């Protein structure tokens, strides 16, 4: 069973790695951390606010994680996604996959973040230092990245 957390609080990637290590059959841990950019399209970002759909979001992530665990025979899987107001440089998301060998750990990590981006209900709103604020539009590149794992 994957560990899935949707929370306002920051998290420690080191603590996640420690928890997944185990010392048993795990031979490698893949990990991706997404952070808030300081500039978007040449404009300085003041903050990013993340909204989610309580209940559906956790279910959607749990389903994606279960798919990864089954496809790559994972020995551990953790997904943490933050919500609320985040400043440039802040961590937004972490996905981690522990497996017997590196190929499964790395592929599962890529799959987890690609599917999370297109299938988990989160919405980002960017506030710029010039006072503008915009909801982020979905990117076709993200759909293409998710489609390669089908």
């Amino acid at each position: 069973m994957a560990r899935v957390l949707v929370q306002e609080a920051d998290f420690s990637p080191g603590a996640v790695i420690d928890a997944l290590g185990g010392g048993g059959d795990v031979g490698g841990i893949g990990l991706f951390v997404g952070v808030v950019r300081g500039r978007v399209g040449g404009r300085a970002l003041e903050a990013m606010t993340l909204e989610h759909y309580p209940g559906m979001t956790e279910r959607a992530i749990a389903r994606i994680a279960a798919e990864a665990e089954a496809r790559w025979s994972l020995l551990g899987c953790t997904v943490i996604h933050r919500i609320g107001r985040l400043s440039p440089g802040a961590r937004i998301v972490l996905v981690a996959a522990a497996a017997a060998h590196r190929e499964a750990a790395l592929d599962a990590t890529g799959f987890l973040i690609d599917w999370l981006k297109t299938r988990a209900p989160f919405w980002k709103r960017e506030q710029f230092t010039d006072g503008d604020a915009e909801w982020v539009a979905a990117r076709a590149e993200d759909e293409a990245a998710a489609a390669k794992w089908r």
Partner: protein
Amino acid sequence: MVRVLYFAWLRERIGAAEESLDPPAEVATLGGLIEWLSARDERHAQALADRRLVRAAVNQDFADPDTPIRPGDEVAFFPPVTGG
């Protein structure tokens, strides 16, 4: 009654995060619900007009226009997701 939730810019344009609605019995699908909502209120009509920009869920599963709607269901409308 059907509980309808709105997220992100759909919530802002409609001016509500949630409403409890009692659609007539002939509203049997998600597509029918969108048509009914749009016919009775201009703000809903405008927010839901461009279907390419609107996604939906019924009882917290992604849904399409043919998905059945029954009393007691939880329906949500939102933009394409942008997390991660």
